[in-house]
Each structure stands twice: as C-alpha cells, then as structure tokens.
C-alpha cells in the first residue's frame, strides 16, 4: 500500500506558521478551562503534617502538581509520592504505609477484601481526574469523527443491535483511494486494562473482532497506526505522536463533533484516589484539606495541565460528600 505511506517529515516552517496561527487564534480564546462552579479552595491557618501517596505512574504525575500547589499554600506540609504501580495503591493504604493510594484501574475484589478484613469498612474511592481515551487514526486519514455505533461495528466480532461489521474506510464515508482500503483494527491483549475498559464501555463486553492486531504495549500500538495509515486503535491521548490524530466523537453520524480536549468527550477512564475513611469518624484535617484542594478549581486546573480531563462540579461535590466534607452552596 505504497500510496498510504505517511509523510513523516514535518517541516519546521510549517510548525512555526502553525504556532503563529495558534497564537493569534488563542489570544482571544474565551475557553472555560474547568467547570466554573467547582468549589474555590480557601486556605486554613497553621496546617502542618505529611502526606504519602503511593501507586500508579499515570496519576502520580498529576499528584505531583497537586502537591506543588498545596505546598505553595502550606510550606510546612511534606508530601511524598512513590510511583510503584497501581498494584500497590490499595495494599499501601491498607497497611498504613500510604495516606492515599493512586489507582488508574478498577479496584480488584481481593484488594478491597483485604482492606475490609482489616478495617471492617470499605475503602473510599474518589475520582479526581479522568484519562481521555483517544480513537487514533493516521494523520492523513480523511475521517475526522466516529460514533459509538461505528466503533462497535469496527471493533466487535458481532456488533449486534442491528449493526453490521464495518470493514473498509469507505463504509465510514471516505472516498477516493481510501474507499476500498480495509480497516486494520489495532489493539492490545485481552487482559490489558485499557482494552478491558474499552470492551466494557464500547462493546458492552462483546468479544473483539478476531483479526484485531495485538500490540505489545501502547507505544507500539501507536507506532503501528503511524506505520500503516489504514489502522485505527484506542489508547490514552498522552500516547499521541505527530503521525496520528485523535478522532472527534459524535453521538450519531453527522452529529456535532465533540473534541477530545473538551468537557463533553465521553471516552474517559477514571483515575482514582483511595482513601481510608472510617464512616464514623472525620478524616484528619490535613487529609481533608488536601482532598478539598484536589477537588477544587485549582486542583482541577492541575489535572488539565497534566494532560487529563477534569471532573465537573457535581462529581466533585459527590466526592466531597463521600469523605464527609460539607460544601457551601
């Protein structure tokens, strides 16, 4: 498929022009960065102490910016973060080694069971950030949007619901040389977290199509899309490279596109903080204040700076209530 080789040269002049255009366009942008109804964080006097967070690399980098912002308000607070993987998030909270666990996948039953066995209550799981999952295609691909039905028809072995399998780019509206080109589905393995998540959310648990290519990791998955323009795959937005582009989401073909960088993009994976909250007691003040900060407008701006999707006010209020924090309405 020589005609489908991507153009990997990105001329510096083009980049400069693009940057200038962006500068000119965004200078007047009135983008609402985070939900303006998120609570504002108010500093309290004399807060001291330490917080240790242990767990996933993905959320730890955002936690580092929360820690930066929080220490700016409270120079006497020490915050330590250890990146040891999601596997240690709940066990570290259970053992007391961590104040908070950092998790980028669903809690597993045995982890929750071990916590419950020790404390007699369940761990509280807050979602202070979300990872946008991109549907990537090659940058030269003429398709720019995708709908839930199209995703099912591309990735599911049996799309069901009256849908038929989509095998060529022409079936998604591409014309010319793309019309007859087959769609190459790029995936991971059936046990990978992002694949399990996508399967549950998009396919409703249905099996993936048998000819979906299995890639060793997210980096190689994106490289596969960059290398073969007929490809399509799903992975966290942070794996983007210049040779691929994320598709905008439409609820139905022809609908209003929802860009992956905006609040309405629905393909997001929760990133979680595990809290040891005894239902009969308040959290220590330092923990309450840190969580208030994370769930405030400032904390959510940090989430955006880290490349993730912020939560809305109603999710923040729900999370605050779960750890016993009152909110002035």
């Amino acid at each position: 498929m020589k005609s489908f080789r991507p153009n990997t040269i990105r001329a510096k002049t083009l980049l400069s022009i693009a940057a200038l255009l962006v500068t000119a366009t965004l200078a007047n942008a009135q983008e609402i960065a985070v939900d303006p109804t998120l609570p504002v964080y108010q500093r309290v006097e004399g807060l001291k102490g330490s917080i240790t967070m242990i767990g996933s690399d993905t959320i730890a980098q955002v936690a580092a910016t929360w820690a930066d912002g929080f220490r700016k308000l409270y120079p006497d607070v020490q915050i330590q973060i250890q990146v040891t993987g999601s596997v240690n998030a709940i066990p570290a909270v259970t053992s007391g080694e961590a104040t908070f666990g950092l998790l980028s996948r669903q809690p597993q039953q045995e982890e929750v069971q071990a916590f419950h066995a020790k404390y007699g209550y369940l761990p509280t799981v807050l979602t202070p950030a979300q990872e946008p999952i991109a549907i990537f295609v090659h940058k030269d691909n003429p398709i720019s949007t995708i709908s839930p039905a199209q995703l099912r028809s591309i990735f599911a072995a049996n799309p069901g619901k009256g849908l038929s399998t989509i095998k060529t780019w022409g079936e998604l509206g591409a014309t010319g040389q793309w019309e007859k080109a087959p769609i190459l589905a790029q995936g991971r393995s059936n046990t990978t977290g992002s694949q399990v998540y996508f399967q549950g959310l998009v396919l409703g648990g249905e099996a993936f199509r048998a000819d979906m290519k299995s890639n060793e990791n997210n980096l190689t998955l994106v490289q596969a899309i960059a290398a073969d323009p007929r490809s399509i795959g799903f992975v966290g937005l942070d794996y983007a490279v210049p040779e691929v582009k994320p598709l905008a989401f439409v609820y139905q073909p022809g609908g209003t596109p929802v860009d992956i960088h905006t609040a309405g993009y629905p393909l997001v994976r929760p990133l979680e903080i595990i809290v040891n909250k005894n239902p009969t007691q308040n959290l220590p003040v330092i923990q309450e204040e840190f969580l208030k900060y994370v769930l405030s407008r400032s904390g959510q701006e940090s989430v955006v700076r880290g490349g993730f999707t912020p939560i809305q006010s109603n999710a923040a209020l729900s999370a605050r209530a779960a750890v016993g924090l009152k909110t002035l309405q």
Partner: protein
Amino acid sequence: MKRNSLTTALACICLTMTASTAFAVITNPTQNQTQTNQTQQQFNPTMLPGQEFYNSTQGTNNNPFFGPTFNTNPFNPTNQNPQSNTLPGTTVPGTVPNPNPNLYPNQNDGRNRVDTIPSTQFHNSATNPDQNRWRLGVYSKDLDIGCKIMDVVPGLAAQRAGLEAGDLIVGVNGYQVGYINGELYDCATEFERNADAQGWVTLLVQNVKDKTLMNVPVQLDSRMSTLKGSIALQTQQQLPPNSVAVIELREVIQNGSAPVTFATKRIENVSGYSIPFEIDYDPAHISSYGNYVVFASIASNGQEVYRTAQNYPVLQQGTNRPVAITVQTTKPTYQQIPTPIDKNAQIAQIVKWFNQYLSRDPSDRELAVWLSAIQQGYPMSQVQLELAGHTQFFNRCNRDPQTYVTKVHELLVGRVPNTAEMDYWLARYNAQNGIRSDLAREIQDAVGIR
C-alpha cells in the same frame, strides 16, 4: 414574588396548591435515603464509597455506547424512563402537584431535564467565568428526592428568604436537583444556569414543618466582591500610548515564600496620572486571619514601565476599604522570558514549549489553564517544568529513563549530557521516586532557570 416571611409564603402555598398539573419528581418511592451513603459496612466491592456518581453515570442508563439510547443522542430524554415518585410527607402517590405550573413550562411535556443540555457540558452563560456566580448560603446534602438544607448561613440569601434547616429544595426554576436516575444535579450548577442578571431564581421547596411544597423566589448572593481603588504615578510623566495596567490581589502565605495571586484585573489603554480600578474577587478566598496585599504594574508594548514598590495591605479582618496605591518607574529588564504582563508573548512561549516537549500545540483548555496559573503567580518556568513531567513527553521518550534524561537535558541545558552527567541524573531520577517534574526542577535549579 419575593417571600418576606414564612407566613406570607405559607399563604401563597395555600393559593397555589390548587393547581392540578402534575410535576413528576424522580425519586425512590420507598425511602428517603441519600445516594451518598458512606456508612456501608457490608462487603460489596461493586459499590465502593465515593463511586456513586461514576457507578451511575457510567452505568447502562447513561452510557452513550451501550445504553438504552444507543444509536441516538444518549442524552435524549425521549428515550429516558422517568420514574414516578412520592415525596415523603405528601399524600399523592406517584406524582407531586406543581404549585404553579406557569413557572415551569418545560415540566409538563414529559421531558426529563437531562435533555436540555448534555450533562457533561459545563453550564456557563457568563462571558467571564469568574463573574456572575451565585450562592444561596446553605450547607446541603444531595438526596434522590432533592437537595436537603442542613445548615443556613446567617445573613445570606437563604436566611433572607426564610429557608431553614430541613427544608428540601426540589427544583430550581423548574429543573430538578439532587440525584436523578442516579446522576447528581447540584444546586450550584442550576444557580449558574438559571439565575437572572440580578441573581433571582425560583426554588421549589418542600417545607420541613408541614411537608407542603412552595415556590420561593430568592435573590441569590453574588459570590464575587469588589475592591475599589486607584493607582497614582509617582512621577508626573505621561503614560506611553496603549499602556495596560494589571492589578493583582495576593495572599502572603509566609515571609520569604512567593505570594499567591487569587484575583487579577487588566485595564487596557490607561492614561492620566491616576487610574481608578475595581477588582472582583471571590470572598471564599478570604479568611479573617489572612494577610492580603494588592500589587499593580503598568506595561507598554509588552515591557513593564511602572510597578508598586511596596505591599499595600487590603481586606484586613474582613474589611473592604478602597485602596490608593502608587507605582514607580521600573528599571528596564533584559529577560528573555516575557514579563507576566505580556499575554501574547506568554502564549507564544507556551506554544513554543508545547511543540518542543509534546510535538503539538496546546489545546484551548490547556492554554487557558496555563494563563490562569501564570496569573495566579506561577513563573513561566513552571510551564517547562510541568511539560517535562507530562506523561506525553515521557511517552515521546519511549518511557525510557535514559532517553528521558537526555531529552530533558537537551531542552533545558542545550546539549546532551556526557557520561558522568547521565549517571548523575539517572541516579537523581531514581531517587525522585518516579516523579519526573521533580527531576526537571533539579536540572532547572542546576542551570539557574527560575
């Protein structure tokens, strides 16, 4: 109708309760129980505390990929299945009478309020997201039948309207609040969506005492307060044309550490020797023991020409008195990094760094938060720092620490590290427990980037 007393309001209820139009409220028909129940002691890992919101919104009802509205707009109400309900204390099973149907024209067509706007969109009609924000003045708890008032703050809108602890807010201008089909619709968001320019909304409230429903017009309090003042030039020189003044409200956290800016006002094309200003701020930032100061600077053609030479304390112990400040000539600086006042130069620099680190432009949202962060007092070097810690940058380095150290060194120092430097920075990388921005900060410190 503004409710001046509870007696007046109750009289209104008697008049309005005769309306026959049904007002469907989504609720649990059997019990008055919050969905944010955190006292669950039984082992049930499928419903962990804190996940109620996500269990509901990502459940089958509202899942755009696999819900009942599959293949159509997932937020389209025509495919929703609103439940009938009974508010506790009411006698009409299945429905609750709408005391004034004319106020709620949208409630009578069977639509669920979810349809009016996709729930994942931010609701903000104000041109400035920091302004026109409203507060009722209550602490409340969201239930699946509405929003229950737990405490009323003295002197604020709720108390003026006669609301009291235990009252249940069922709707705001006809839009239900609380948990609806498992999803939370909070009062704060509805206030922003529905309050008029003067902050008026009509609440549908169930009175705690007699369980009757009433329409209660309330004028919400603005969340924003205004500090007034003026800037005087110390010299009698004319300001250059196209001068821009920036006034910042800052909190001094601790002697020796950088103050935190929490409100900024920018005034274009200033002239004359005295410049009046009004700067809006959220009183939620202010505490009685805080130490707050105002700072001002004036720039022309991107170059700062005047600034305050001293701190002017303001908002001390809750007072809000006008402040008169003086600015004096700024010595020319030759920094490559743009002054905080030059927004276009800041944007150009941020775009350049995004392309260097992430090989892409910032999204509008990312640019907006960075400009906000810089307004709040973050230095420009923080952009570099956080981009160096960004997951996408690490991915661009194939998630390999050695490649990562090489790239960061190249970008911050201007060359690849030699063997000794590589060994040192790799050791530091490992010592930072995997927090990459901390390593970038060490390299910044080593080469004197501030």
